[in-house]
């Protein structure tokens, strides 16, 4: 394509008075006509409305346009609209560029018409410069395997598997423990209706076990996951049970003869089990296991088993499967109460935790459902301590675990049900009975005479004579310090992510928040999606959830997972990385940068390849390639350099170049616009998908062209949309580049690296104000600092 072939059409939007009130749209349009390659310019009152769109389509046809620039609002708002519009007119949708003269211009510089005007012109020039260099791209379409995997067989995992199975998809349900059921199987009653937990869960487990589309793989762990949406290759290791799954009929004869007595994990170690055991009576699959570490290998079970099912020679087995989608339902675990030393758990025998309480009050528990203390006496006066391991910065769990208020009320009601004369007190900070019917439960508890005392106990002591517990608390409603003796104290444990969650997080590349819970793609609008396409979250691994919420999220995740599997294909944006093998030295740096494993480096064949379907298009690999062998489609070096050059053509020393990432700081600047937070008009924003795309050369180029200051604004450390792009940006820009600048005679303060989230519009505006102040103070001094570059990467923005 020769330069003559590029025919750019520019459409400048008035947006009613939103843009036109501050920016002289007509003047901008006139300016646009003077720009190279621009063959057609049109003003629209509302470009996004149907008449506006028709004008674009007509322009393309009549003037044979092959590039379209729309100067209007934020591309985050209308880029998809206009892409579709140009596609309808027969143009490749990637030959469209949007210039943001509303959120980033007219709305934020309302008191400085002259400079706003200059900025609008600059932005249009930059947009045209990029548009002239755009290349047509195709979306990548990949097929989707019509099979799913659910990791974790708690109530959420079972529900997700049942839903997917019933939709007709082959579903592999992988459970780490010998039986599915999770924490719900250990509970006595559920809330708010006080119905039996295992009675409602049991049938669900049985359904899951015998569903024709569900392949239940218990006692197994996911060892390896590779691939991308639609085509995940999963390796599962099945641990040996030492009892043949097929031959064992679950009769239990082996258990009677086993001489080894061990604590039963299912019963919170309150009840015995043998070295050969089934997890619990309703276990699915109802098969026996041998705890081989504790087994004496006496062989009595072999004698007792008339099916010859026991086999000590079993080895771990590996199974490989390909699935289209994965649902993560690894759940959570109760907080370890021994960490709260002041409550004496593990030291005083009558301080127990809420899970142990569930087993003790359960009819199949160690005491047949009687609330009996360790010494055999009945507990008549019981205290519940709320927020043990929740809302507690000291132990690092700042969040509310959501379920424990209602759960403690339920447990208190169960005591009252067993023994109406028992005295029960609940020590709370705030009673949060948020669910449907939970407040009724609270009311019933008050009627039943359960005491609610507001205050977080500072200490639990033990009466050494009778082993009673003494709760020390400040009753904040009565303003008095209380010391009250109880027969038993129950600690309402918060939920926290399991140890295993970390492993799953690294295995699947799904990020976790600072508390360790998996992050949703969007907290409100995509609450069960992960940032990785094709992987969804169910149950309490994303946040603390009670049974109902877990089931709900599981069904939601199954429905979401059903979408690509029903469609049979997914399309991925074409803004991926590509390798130029002639420049590639197969050093492998790019593969290290890629958090998605999309880059394969084969040192033997001496090649590097990018798997388009896995590449999310952050560009981090491109920015860090020492040989310039990688390029990101639609955000090429050439395009971005052309933008920099265009923006800094006039009075560069007065300008601030701001590299904003699409997901956080660009959106933050949009928010500043929507909120009309005013800041100086000398800032020029360049949009990149991720701060990881901002290379050293881009910053150096800006200084070379004489930019006053440069800002790189990534997402906050744990919030990167591409998992780790901002980490590499920090390393490259914030840590390494300053020394280079110093050496080159540029004051390092002229480069700023500042985290801006999508919610921090005001902070962005304040930052620019502050930077501008500094720039004005040092204008003369900095103007003279000339960047000297030796051996810089030669990427010239060729005259288009």
């Amino acid at each position, binding site marked *: 394509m020769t330069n003559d072939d590029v025919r750019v059409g520019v459409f400048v939007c008035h947006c009613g008075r939103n843009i036109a009130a501050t920016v002289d749209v007509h003047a901008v349009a006139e300016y646009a006509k003077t720009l190279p390659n621009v063959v057609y310019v049109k003003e629209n009152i509302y470009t996004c409305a149907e008449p506006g769109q028709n004008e674009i389509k007509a322009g393309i046809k009549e003037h044979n346009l092959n590039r379209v620039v729309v100067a209007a609002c934020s591309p985050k708002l209308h880029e998809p609209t206009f892409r579709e519009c140009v596609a309808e007119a027969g143009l490749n949708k990637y030959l469209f560029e949007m210039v943001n003269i509303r959120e980033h211009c007219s709305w934020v510089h309302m008191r400085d018409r002259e400079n706003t005007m200059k900025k609008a012109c600059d932005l249009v020039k930059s947009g045209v410069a990029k548009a002239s260099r755009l290349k047509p791209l195709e979306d990548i379409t990949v097929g989707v395997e019509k099979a799913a995997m659910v990791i974790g067989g708690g109530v959420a995992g079972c529900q997700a598997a049942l839903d997917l199975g019933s939709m007709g998809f082959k579903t592999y349900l992988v459970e780490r423990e010998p039986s599915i059921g999770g924490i719900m199987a250990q509970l006595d009653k559920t809330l708010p209706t006080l119905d039996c937990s295992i009675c409602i869960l049991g049938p669900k487990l049985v359904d899951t076990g015998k569903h024709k589309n569900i392949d239940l793989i218990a006692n197994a762990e996911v060892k390896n996951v590779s691939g991308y949406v639609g085509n995940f290759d999963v390796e599962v290791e099945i641990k040996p049970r030492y009892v043949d799954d097929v031959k064992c009929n679950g009769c239990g004869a082996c258990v009677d003869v086993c*001489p080894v007595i061990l*604590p039963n994990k299912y019963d919170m170690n309150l009840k015995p089990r043998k070295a050969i055991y089934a997890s619990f009576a309703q276990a699915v699959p109802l098969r026996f296991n041998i705890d081989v570490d504790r087994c004496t290998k*006496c*062989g*009595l079970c072999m*004698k007792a088993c008339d099916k*010859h099912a026991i*086999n000590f020679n079993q080895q771990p087995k590996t199974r490989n499967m390909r699935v289209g989608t994965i649902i993560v339902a690894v759940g959570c675990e109760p907080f370890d109460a021994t960490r709260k030393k002041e409550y004496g758990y593990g030291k005083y025998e009558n301080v127990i935790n809420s899970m142990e309480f569930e087993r003790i009050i359960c009819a199949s528990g160690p*005491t047949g459902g009687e609330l009996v203390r360790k010494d055999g006496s009945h507990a008549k006066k019981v205290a519940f301590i709320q927020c043990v391991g929740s809302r507690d910065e000291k132990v690092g769990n700042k969040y509310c675990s959501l379920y424990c208020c209602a759960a403690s009320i339920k447990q208190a009601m169960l005591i009252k049900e067993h023994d109406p004369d028992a005295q029960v007190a609940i020590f709370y900070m705030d009673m949060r009975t948020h669910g449907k019917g939970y407040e009724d439960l609270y009311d019933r508890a008050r009627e039943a005479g359960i005491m609610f005392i507001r205050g977080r106990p500072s200490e639990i002591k033990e009466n050494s004579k009778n082993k009673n517990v003494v709760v020390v608390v400040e009753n904040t409603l009565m303003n008095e310090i209380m010391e009250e003796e109880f027969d038993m104290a129950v600690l309402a444990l918060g939920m926290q992510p399991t140890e295993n969650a970390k492993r799953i997080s690294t295995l699947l590349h799904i990020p976790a928040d600072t508390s360790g819970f998996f992050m949703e793609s969007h907290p409100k609008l995509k609450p069960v999606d992960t940032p990785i396409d094709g992987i969804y979250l169910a149950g309490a691994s994303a946040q603390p959830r009670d049974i109902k919420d877990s089931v709900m999220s599981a069904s939601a995740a199954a429905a979401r997972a059903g979408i690509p599997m029903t469609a049979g294909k997914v399309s991925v944006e074409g803004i991926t990385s590509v390798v130029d093998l002639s420049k590639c030295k197969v050093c492998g740096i790019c593969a290290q940068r890629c958090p998605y494993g999309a880059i394969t480096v084969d040192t033997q064949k001496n090649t590097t390849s990018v798997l388009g379907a896995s590449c999310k298009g952050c560009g981090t690999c491109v920015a860090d390639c020492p040989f310039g062998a990688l390029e990101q489609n639609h955000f090429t070096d050439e395009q971005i350099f052309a933008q920099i050059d265009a923006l800094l053509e006039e009075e560069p020393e007065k300008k601030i170049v701001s590299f904003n990432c699409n997901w956080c700081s660009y959106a933050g600047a949009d928010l500043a616009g929507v909120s009309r937070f005013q800041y100086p008009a000398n800032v020029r924003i360049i949009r990149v998908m991720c701060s990881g795309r901002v290379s050293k050369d881009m910053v150096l180029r800006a200084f070379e062209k004489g930019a006053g200051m440069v800002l790189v604004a990534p997402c906050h450390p744990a919030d990167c949309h591409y998992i780790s792009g901002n980490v590499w940006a920090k390393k490259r820009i914030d840590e390494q580049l300053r020394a280079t600048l110093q050496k080159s005679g540029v004051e390092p303060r002229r480069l700023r690296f500042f985290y801006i989230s999508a919610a921090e519009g005001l902070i962005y505006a304040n930052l620019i104000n502050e930077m501008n102040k500094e720039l004005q103070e040092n204008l003369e001094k900095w103007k003279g600092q000339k960047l000297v570059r030796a051996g810089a990467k030669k990427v010239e923005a060729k005259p288009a």
Partner: protein
Amino acid sequence: MQISKYSDAKRTVVDNRLWAMKNSLVLEKNMCIVCDVCSKACPMEAVVLSSAGVDIDEKKCNLCEVCAYVCPTGAINIFSDKNKKEILRQSGGFPSFPKKLEIKVEKCPKDCVECEKACDMTTGGAIKVVSHKVIDVSEKCLRCVKCAEACPEGAIKVNPVFFGDIEINAEKCPTGCVECVDVCPTRAIKEKNGKVLLEKKYCVFCGACEVVCPAKDKGALVMKRNIMVSNGDGFSAIWTNALEKLTSTKSLAAAYNSINSEKLRKLALESQMVEEK
């Protein structure tokens, strides 16, 4: 609620305390003769033996009962709540041992207490004449033959559990060392003129001397158990393991060839073969 251990001057207790149930191993220190029988029989290698005494590693012990069965003095007992735990024996995994003494009390002369006088063990007397023709034999009895020798009527038959060889080569002993004399529970080893002297007929092959002997590597003391006598055979690897560790390989082979063990081996083979198919 994990397995815990506590120890005082009298006993060591390994406690598997569950909320409403208590499983425990109780080692009575005053009855323990610090022999090596339990440590050899233990399939989990949880018994730690030193000259200071017997200790149990609670992290390894899983209360499988073997030590309680083989202890020659009944110093170890395993309880499930308040009852003795005997699952292994009840399910045929471990045989019982012959009655310690068979006494034809009808032969007892009036006012004869010869047997009681003759019983001379470091842990105290094990046989007691309660009244005429009523003789009480305690768990402590080690099956030496002193009482039988002393009985004027020959009414006492002793059933030993272990048969074997023992030899003390006094010339290899370190000068002045009388460790074995001090520990021998039946006083079969004596000191005479600074020399160690063994009366083989009283030896019960408990192995206490071997535990303390500082020169056993040099051949000062050689003890070998050849045969362990039991009431029938046990159907378990615990039993074969105990046989292997406590006796010579000869009797182990005999045990393997016994009907029960053959069955066990067959079963193992069978399940393997089916697996292979």
